[in-house]
């Protein structure tokens, strides 16, 4: 094939566009080269929580390409990032051997043997526990670890070391969704599935830029709208994102006013009698918090509570036209089926749990739940935050399968299953993420094992917490695949893990679907699976060998699968053999012949609802077996704009990068598309401030300042600026606020007050 370089680049651009679209070429105006693949290995994409099935093409022991799995939920579709995963495996900065920092925190990392590195790690952890107790050490994990890795780390720390300082980056992204689901339904995780997108006639998307953060799901929504003209999309977002551009109704509300909007919509629903009285009187209870305790309320109490949220008043709070609020509520209620979708815009908030519960309220009072296309569905940001961390209870207040540290019965159940003496598990929850890094900064937490995450870039108010990591008395161990991760600057020991398809294990995505990541290639150098690293760590720490009797991740999976039996998270039927044969199975799945569950709490769908139950729905997660409609008032953000800091800064992703770009930054097509962060601001604001496109702009919050190039346009509403957080050269989290949600302890990344001026 005779092609000029320009032709080649055009073909590359077209091919990646198809990849972003998630659709294979049906026809092409240009010849497309085909690479020879010896075998295809089934797996799951390494990036977002959509959990797209992939096939990794291997030739000569090397992964040469990735394509979508036609048998998984994504039906062969992949976004640009997923399609370009193969080169990430061979990034030149892969960590391939253990390293130890010599000469204190300002010294250099030097190669070491596994024995040298592990002996140092264990000696430091043992010394700290002996001197200061088990609460002086901690584990900080990730929604990117395999389920087996998270489950194992949780078990080693909570049962083996008697330490509940087990948390991870899902605290930064999904904790408010957990609080929302558990608060409203008694158990975590969505009740619906992606298949609801094919049946919904109304999508209510709030606080989610689905087009850039979950492109394959956005494609599914866009296709649904294309096929059926009756389908309506409502997007509530202060930015005119690509998601908002396909909306029938865009609600560009002021940042931090979504609680008012959601209560305002509920007000309209009741005032216009668009609620489903038969549904909520049968299946819901009304609740409020009084003096710090939940109390029962009546429907009339709820109606009175909502009187404060008239469209006119909510219009003043949100900056929206009251007519839009009324119309949004009518669309929500009058559509045959309505699906709500949200992500970090609701979760990363001081009042994130409240916001989640107010979305659930809309579904519970209209009865738009538990039917195809009617569900409230939280989107997840990482590939295994749901299955790996939420389900396994790898957070400081949880135990596996929805159990709580603070509940003595739950502790006893787990201790019995793990075969440890009664009273082994500490009854007090450990440090949540922000508290864990604060404790390190105060010298209380001496040793931290960080597995597959990059807190030096991803923590809010990051300078405060990097200072903690930089303390000479803070011993930091990173199990990290990529040498340019910002956190490695503070690591005392770095251990090389097998990455993604270099080992086998399970991912669980947003829709409760567990899929197997197959091993396609060998890890480089001395890198090895994190399960093996954790077992080695536990063994050297002197943990009872009976607690870690595993030769590989399949053994860990089998134990965790058996542990789920009889719980509301029952997936005893999802065996390793089934995962190898099938392309993902949704729990609950109690038996090996059960097909999985698309709708929880529904008779005839959810195996945990008795087949002869008299009601169509059964909310078995709560003591009363009913869902809760919570009265949650509108509250301001932790840091509202004022005369000194008059703008709101919000942060997020762009389509070409994922998280801190330690992976996407290695792919030329992605890096070239978005090499640097920028600040996006409204053109009216820019004009007032004398800022033109490309000018250097100084942002300043109460925590730090930063210069960024301006991107002027109509995307942000006036008074709002947006900065993506992928760029380690511009650590925007130095400016963000570390105030946390009172319930979920998730930080309010999405809102802080800043000054804006031309630099």
């Amino acid at each position, binding site marked *: 094939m005779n092609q000029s*370089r320009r032709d080649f680049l*055009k073909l590359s*651009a*077209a091919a990646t566009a198809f990849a972003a679209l998630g659709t294979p070429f049906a026809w092409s*105006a240009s010849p497309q080269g085909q690479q020879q693949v010896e075998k295809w290995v089934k797996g799951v994409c390494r990036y977002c929580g959509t959990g797209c099935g992939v096939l990794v093409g291997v030739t000569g022991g090397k992964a040469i390409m990735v394509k979508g799995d036609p048998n998984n939920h994504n039906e062969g579709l992949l976004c640009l990032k997923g399609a370009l995963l193969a080169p990430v495996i061979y990034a030149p900065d892969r960590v391939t051997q253990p390293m130890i920092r010599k000469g204190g925190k300002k010294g250099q990392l030097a190669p070491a043997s596994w024995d040298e590195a592990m002996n140092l790690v264990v000696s430091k952890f043992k010394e700290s526990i002996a001197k200061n107790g088990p609460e002086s050490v901690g584990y900080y994990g990730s929604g990117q670890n395999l389920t087996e890795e998270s489950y194992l780390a949780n078990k080693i720390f909570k049962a083996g070391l008697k330490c509940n300082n087990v948390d991870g980056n899902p605290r930064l992204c999904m904790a408010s969704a957990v609080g929302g689901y558990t608060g409203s339904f008694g158990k975590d995780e969505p009740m619906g599935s992606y298949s609801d997108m094919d049946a919904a006639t109304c999508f209510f998307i709030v606080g989610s830029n689905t087009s850039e953060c979950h492109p394959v799901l956005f494609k599914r929504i*866009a296709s649904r709208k*294309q096929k059926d003209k009756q389908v309506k999309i409502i997007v509530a977002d202060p930015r005119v994102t690509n998601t908002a551009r396909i909306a029938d109704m865009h609600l560009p509300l002021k940042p931090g006013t979504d609680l008012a909007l959601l209560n305002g919509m509920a007000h309209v629903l009741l005032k216009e009698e668009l609620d489903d009285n038969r549904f909520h009187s049968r299946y819901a209870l009304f609740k409020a918090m009084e003096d710090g305790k939940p109390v029962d309320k009546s429907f009339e109490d709820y109606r009175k509570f909502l009187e404060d949220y008239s469209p006119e008043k909510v219009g003043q709070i949100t900056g929206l036209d009251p007519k839009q609020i009324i119309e949004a509520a009518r669309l929500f209620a009058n559509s045959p089926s309505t699906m709500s979708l949200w992500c970090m815009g609701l979760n990363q908030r001081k009042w994130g749990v409240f916001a989640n519960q107010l979305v659930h309220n809309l579904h519970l009072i209209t009865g738009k739940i538990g039917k195809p296309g009617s569900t409230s569905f939280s989107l997840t940001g990482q590939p295994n935050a749901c299955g790996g961390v939420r389900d396994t209870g790898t957070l400081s207040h949880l135990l596996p399968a929805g159990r709580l540290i603070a509940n003595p019965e739950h502790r006893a159940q787990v201790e019995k299953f793990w075969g440890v003496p009664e009273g082994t598990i500490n009854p007090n929850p450990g440090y949540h993420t922000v508290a864990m890094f604060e404790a390190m900064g105060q010298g209380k937490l001496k040793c931290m094992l960080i597995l597959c995450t990059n807190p030096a870039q991803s923590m809010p108010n990051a300078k405060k917490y990097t200072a903690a990591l930089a303390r000479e008395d803070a011993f930091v161990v990173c199990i990290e695949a990529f040498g340019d991760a910002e956190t490695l600057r503070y690591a005392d020991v770095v251990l090389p893990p097998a990455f993604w398809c270099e080992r086998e294990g399970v991912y669980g995505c947003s829709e409760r679907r567990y899929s197997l990541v197959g091993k396609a290639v060998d890890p480089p150098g001395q890198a090895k699976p994190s399960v093996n690293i954790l077992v080695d760590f536990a063994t050297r720490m002197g943990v009872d060998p009976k607690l870690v009797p595993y030769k590989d991740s399949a053994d860990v999976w089998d134990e965790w699968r058996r542990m789920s039996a009889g719980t509301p998270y029952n997936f005893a039927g999802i065996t390793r053999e089934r995962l190898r044969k099938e392309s993902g199975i949704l729990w609950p799945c109690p038996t090996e012949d059960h097909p999985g569950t698309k709708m929880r709490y529904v008779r005839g769908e959810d195996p945990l609802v008795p087949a002869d139950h008299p009601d169509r729905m059964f909310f078995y997660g709560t003591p009363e077996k009913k869902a809760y409609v919570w009265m949650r008032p509108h509250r301001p953000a932790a840091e509202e704009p004022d005369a000194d800091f008059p703008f709101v800064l919000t942060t997020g992703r762009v389509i070409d990068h994922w998280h801190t770009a330690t992976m996407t930054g290695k792919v*030329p097509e992605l890096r070239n598309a*978005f090499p640097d962060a920028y600040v996006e601001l409204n053109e009216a604001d820019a004009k007032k401030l004398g800022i033109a496109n490309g000018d250097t702009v100084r942002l300043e919050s109460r925590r730090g300042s930063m210069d960024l190039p301006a991107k002027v346009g109509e995307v942000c509403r006036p008074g709002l600026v947006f900065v993506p957080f992928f760029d380690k050269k511009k650590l925007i989290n130095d400016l963000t606020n570390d105030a946390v949600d009172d319930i979920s302890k998730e930080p309010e990344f999405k809102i802080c007050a800043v000054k804006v001026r031309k630099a």
Partner: protein
Amino acid sequence: MAITGLVVMPAAGMGPDALRMRLEGLEGLSCFGGSEDGSLVYVLEAPASELESRLRGISEMEGVGVVLPTSVNMEDELEADGDA
């Protein structure tokens, strides 16, 4: 000069041929292929500074449903090759 992959999805009721005809003749646009659901993939050659206004222009055309810029900007590579 930037080279950017661009996905154009037809509005409801419009077939891919009609969509392609509508977009034919736009300066700097070349169609590279189509997908089973009727979407078309174009490669847009335009200075990066003009890209947003071009995309907005296309998205506002009658019969065009969704425009998804995929941000595959090959400008740096072209410049490195002296081919820009």
